[in-house]
């Protein structure tokens, strides 16, 4: 194809990126012109231009929807070469253009049933590569029939493609594969001989298990044939052309080993376990002389020979199977042959010093999984020093794995060595790893130290060597531990710890000149709360001075903590310090920072009444025992389970738990299970199914939770009609109102938004006749918003008293899941804390600002935003057209075009984010948003069309608007 070759050669000859761009632009405009008069084009031309477009696409040029239509036309061409080009272009360019994909459904159907194997193959490739709702709706049945058919009419070639196709469609439409029908069929597939077909069938089976739609045992019919097939391969029964560098079908072996990891060990009978153990044994016990050694890494100037390269391929294939076998062994736990486990531990030990970095990496990863079974530590402990050495490798991938492994291996007997070494590494480690190191060190020290004072020392050491990596969570946790927990050690012991912590703080603050902000916060808090426990030799004046000298340097939040700490010290030493502290407070009364100013004035006022001061500044009571068990730092660590086989549901669960899984303490007995579900308010912005399939979603019907599994009772902590969810969904469209209401505590919320930034003020009001204490708020960080708090939450409220909490949110990315706002309080001393899992009403519509556009502009722009950037939802109208203006304008902050009327409305806005635009770093990313509503008064139906430049935004907005505008 000459034209294409010339085009490619031209581009290659371009000297600069700019020249290249000009050449591509020229070609694109030529192609667009040609496509504008399609009648004159031959199939050959079409094919040629589509190839050129693909080349430009590959180089990263935006070709928008040029050529989409031509690609679709080529698919139905009778000429094989044109058809090939059409299908390939379709799968590369049109994957997210549903309207176009719909147009090739018929071509696909024709080709699949054409009887021509190669045409059918092309069509199936395309279906598998695109997936998508159009194909799922129209082709699922046809393709399942191909696999279910009893006849042998189809070749393994077509069958294997059909398997993967069906898997792709099943991921979209996962009601289609019922175990009653499919389990036997899949089991029969595993009796096939063709390795290619078996490989695809294994992928298909793995995909089904990963989806987790049905519990794995529903598919247990496949276990025996998989095991048989695997045993054959392990014994070397395999056609020669499926041997990969002398390893029999390594892909198939690994996939089958992985399939078995999905089944609970209890589903394996003794006979099967015996067979599995034999398989594992023969994989693992292969003498190391037969296992090809990894080649040496290429030295300077020395070229790798072909033999080296081949040895590398063989080694990779062998180790791939070996690691997967170890994963299965780890899954079998105690039913695995202990000798095999011992062999595995020994091999992993050898891998630590492998010359091949890949093997070192995977060895560490697998060893960490193995270490989750404590009984293996006797084999693994001996490698501790070697693993610590790995923390000095230059490769961050390996250091990360080594750290994970050390974390898994750490116990009270060896923690000190591990933690000491990690502390040593911390200072010189790069930022990427530091934060994880800090979290892990803090957790390990707390969990393992016999003398908890060491834990405090460890945190201070971290503040010295890597203060920037110590997040607030870390020092909050120190405060919890030092304050103590209910049912903790004796008061004397706890006081010894407090004294230790206070003196550590004093030493640091009095000796350091420019203490880091985080160190200041922790130090100030500890000095304020526990400074009175310091030995007599430290005079009150010295204590105050230790705080005062850092005041100017602190951040506003730190200053506030310092201020409070100073007053607490005053409270303990009234006579000695009154003059200084009052003078200090007076100075700050004139501070430019309003928060500080207010705090200073209040504290000055308090100082006048010593009894009252004493009352207000009484030491914190110990934290609940549940707080001790649920270390928030552990929740922040990434999920890592010993098993490599995960269902989607498990992975999603894990993803949710990251960022703080706050367990509500509704009582010790039932607080462990389903904790997460209880705390999640049903969220109208998160329907998990397309509109047509979802049940009517009514904001007031709060019992209809939308995540299928937890359809049980949700929660009933609301009193009377206004549930927290009602209040929340009202606040999502109004600037202020009631946030929470109960006989004891009432919360009011006010919010102001300016582009991507919102300020929320939450006012806590004690409406009971008794004081409320131990008020705490936890806002788990989310990656879609930047959340900062600008004032402390009041720790207690007297009857009738109120206090406010200032929170600032910044939208970074489009999101559906609102941020959590977890409140805890006690209504009586010693009473179990009440926990309120609230959500902030800062939903994505809050970050929209109106965009004044003319109707013509609106239309023009509206028409360009198609494909996944569009979402159309139909439903019974909940809000009548006369209310639309209110919802669109005031609720969703959009500009409503004056052309809007009772049957149709048009609104435009801009979603603001605080994420810099990669194209123009000085600007923040914004996303234009267009909404159109249509009303059919006869049926009281409303159609909501949301089009934005970004599919995620479209999705989030549509889901939110739907809850207010439609009832079903």
């Amino acid at each position, binding site marked *: 194809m000459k034209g294409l070759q010339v085009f*490619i050669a031209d581009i290659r000859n371009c000297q600069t990126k700019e020249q290249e761009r000009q050449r591509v632009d020229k070609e694109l405009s030529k192609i667009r012109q040609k496509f504008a008069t399609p009648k004159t084009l031959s199939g050959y031309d079409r094919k040629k231009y589509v190839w050129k477009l693909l080349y430009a696409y*590959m180089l990263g040029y935006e070709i928008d929807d040029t050529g989409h239509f031509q690609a679709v036309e080529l698919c139905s061409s009778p000429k094989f070469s044109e058809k090939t080009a059409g299908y390939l272009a379709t799968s590369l360019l049109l*994957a*997210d253009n549903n309207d176009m994909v719909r147009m090739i459904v018929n071509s696909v159907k024709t080709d699949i049933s054409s009887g021509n194997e190669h045409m059918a193959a092309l069509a199936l490739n395309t279906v598998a590569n695109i*997936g998508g709702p159009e194909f799922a709706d129209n082709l699922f049945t046809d393709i399942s029939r191909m696999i279910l058919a009893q006849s042998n009419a189809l070749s393994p070639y077509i069958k294997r493609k059909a398997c993967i196709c069906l898997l792709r469609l099943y991921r979209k439409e996962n009601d289609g594969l019922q175990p009653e029908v499919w389990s036997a069929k899949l089991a029969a597939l595993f009796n096939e001989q063709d390795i290619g077909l078996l490989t695809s069938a294994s992928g298909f089976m793995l995909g089904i298990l990963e989806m987790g739609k049905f519990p794995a045992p529903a598919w247990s019919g496949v276990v025996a044939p998989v095991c048989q097939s695997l045993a054959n391969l392990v014994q070397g029964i395999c056609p020669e052309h499926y041997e990969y560098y002398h390893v029999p*079908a390594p892909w198939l072996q690994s996939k089958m080993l992985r399939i078995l990891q999905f089944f609970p060990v209890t589903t394996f009978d003794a006979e099967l376990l015996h067979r599995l153990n034999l398989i594992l044994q023969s994989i693992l016990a292969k003498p190391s002389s037969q296992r090809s050694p990894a080649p040496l890494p290429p030295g300077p100037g020395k070229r790798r020979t072909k033999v080296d390269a081949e040895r590398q391929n063989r080694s*990779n294939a062998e180790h*791939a199977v070996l690691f997967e076998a170890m994963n299965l062994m780890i899954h079998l736990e105690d039913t695995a042959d202990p000798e095999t486990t011992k062999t595995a531990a020994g091999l992993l030990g050898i891998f630590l010093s492998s010359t091949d*970095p890949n093997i070192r990496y995977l060895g560490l990863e697998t060893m960490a999984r193995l270490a989750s079974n404590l009984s293996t530590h006797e084999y693994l402990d001996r490698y501790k020093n070697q693993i610590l050495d790995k923390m000095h490798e230059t490769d961050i991938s390996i250091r990360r794995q080594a750290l994970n492994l050390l974390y898994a291996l750490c116990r009270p007997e060896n923690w000190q060595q591990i933690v000491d070494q990690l502390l040593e590494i911390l200072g010189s480690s790069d930022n990427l790893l530091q934060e994880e190191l800090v979290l892990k060190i803090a957790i390990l020290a707390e969990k393992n130290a016999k003398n908890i004072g060491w834990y405090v020392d460890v945190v201070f050491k971290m503040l010295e060597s890597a203060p920037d990596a110590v997040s607030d969570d870390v020092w909050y946790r120190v405060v919890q531990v030092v304050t103590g927990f209910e049912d903790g050690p004796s008061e004397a012991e706890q006081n010894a710890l407090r004294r230790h912590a206070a003196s550590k703080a004093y030493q640091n603050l009095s000796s350091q000149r420019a203490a880091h902000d985080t160190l200041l916060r922790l130090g100030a808090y500890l000095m304020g709360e526990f400074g009175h426990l310091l030995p007599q030799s430290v005079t009150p004046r010295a204590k105050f001075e230790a705080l005062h000298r850092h005041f100017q340097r602190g951040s506003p939040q730190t200053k506030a903590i310092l201020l409070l700490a100073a007053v607490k010290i005053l409270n303990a030493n009234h006579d000695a310090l009154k003059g200084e502290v009052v003078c200090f407070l007076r100075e700050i009364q004139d501070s430019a920072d309003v928060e500080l100013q207010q705090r200073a004035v209040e504290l000055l006022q308090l100082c006048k009444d010593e009894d009252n001061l004493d009352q207000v500044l009484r030491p914190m009571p110990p934290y609940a025992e549940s707080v001790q068990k649920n270390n928030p730092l552990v929740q922040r660590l990434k999920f890592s389970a010993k098993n490599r086989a995960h269902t989607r549901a498990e992975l999603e669960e894990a993803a949710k738990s990251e960022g703080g899984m706050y367990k509500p303490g509704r009582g010790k007995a039932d607080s462990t299970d389903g904790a997460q579900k209880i705390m999640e308010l049903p969220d109208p912005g998160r329907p998990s199914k397309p509109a047509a399939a979802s049940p009517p979603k009514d904001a007031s019907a709060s019992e209809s939770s939308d995540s299928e599994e937890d359809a049980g009772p949700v929660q009933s902590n609301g009193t009377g009609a206004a549930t927290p969810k009602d209040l929340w969904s009202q606040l999502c469209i109004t600037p202020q109102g009631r946030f929470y209401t109960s006989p004891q505590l009432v919360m009011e919320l006010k919010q102001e938004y300016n582009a991507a930034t919102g300020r929320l003020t939450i006012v806590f009001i004690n409406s009971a006749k008794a004081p409320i204490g131990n008020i705490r708020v936890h806002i788990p960080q989310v990656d879609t918003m930047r959340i900062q708090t600008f004032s402390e939450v009041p720790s207690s409220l007297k009857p009738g008293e109120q206090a406010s909490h200032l929170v600032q949110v910044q939208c970074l990315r489009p999101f559906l899941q609102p941020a959590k706002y977890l409140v805890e309080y006690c209504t009586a001393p010693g009473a179990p804390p009440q926990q309120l899992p609230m959500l902030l009403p800062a939903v994505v519509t809050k970050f929209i600002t109106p965009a004044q556009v003319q109707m013509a502009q609106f239309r023009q722009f509206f028409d360009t935003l198609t494909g996944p950037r569009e979402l159309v939802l139909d439903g019974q109208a909940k809000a009548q057209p006369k209310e639309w203006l209110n919802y669109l304008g005031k609720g969703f902050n959009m500009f409503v075009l004056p052309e809007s009327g009772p049957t149709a409305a048009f609104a435009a806005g801009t979603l603001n984010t605080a994420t810099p635009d990669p194209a123009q770093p000085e600007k923040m990313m914004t996303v234009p948003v267009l909404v159109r509503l249509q009303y059919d008064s006869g049926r009281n139906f409303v159609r909501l069309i949301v089009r934005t430049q970004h599919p995620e935004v479209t999705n989030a907005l549509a889901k939110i608007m739907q809850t207010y505008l439609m009832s079903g």
Partner: protein
Amino acid sequence: MFDFLIVRLKKWFVPCPERDQFRTIKEVSSLILNRSPKVCNFLEWRDYKLCYKRYASLFFIACVENTDNELLALETVHHFVECLDRYFGNVCELDLIFNFHKAYYILDEILISGELQESSKRAVLHHISEQDAMMQENEQAKRKG
């Protein structure tokens, strides 16, 4: 090391808007180009793993799920390279540049929807040569008609 990066082949098995494709490629390639040749071929990236291998001046990068078998991801890349090598006979970058469509066809016979469907080089090349033959017949038929 490189003035600018040139993409020779890209394939997404999940829909991804063009703009994001560009950004992702830029981010991923700069991460990988900055790694020394002596370190391992895996890198955790977002919720995925990048497995990459270098052949002369070409980098082949596969982004796989965290739970996938990393070594096999590498060998899948190599399997693809070997198929290219056999098809073109000692493949070089120029073959891929001028015949990028062929490379896509071959890839489609190895992986669809990100799943490996055929691990035998012989089988892959057999199907490709049959396809080539069909295209030839087509051309000839055209000439006669």
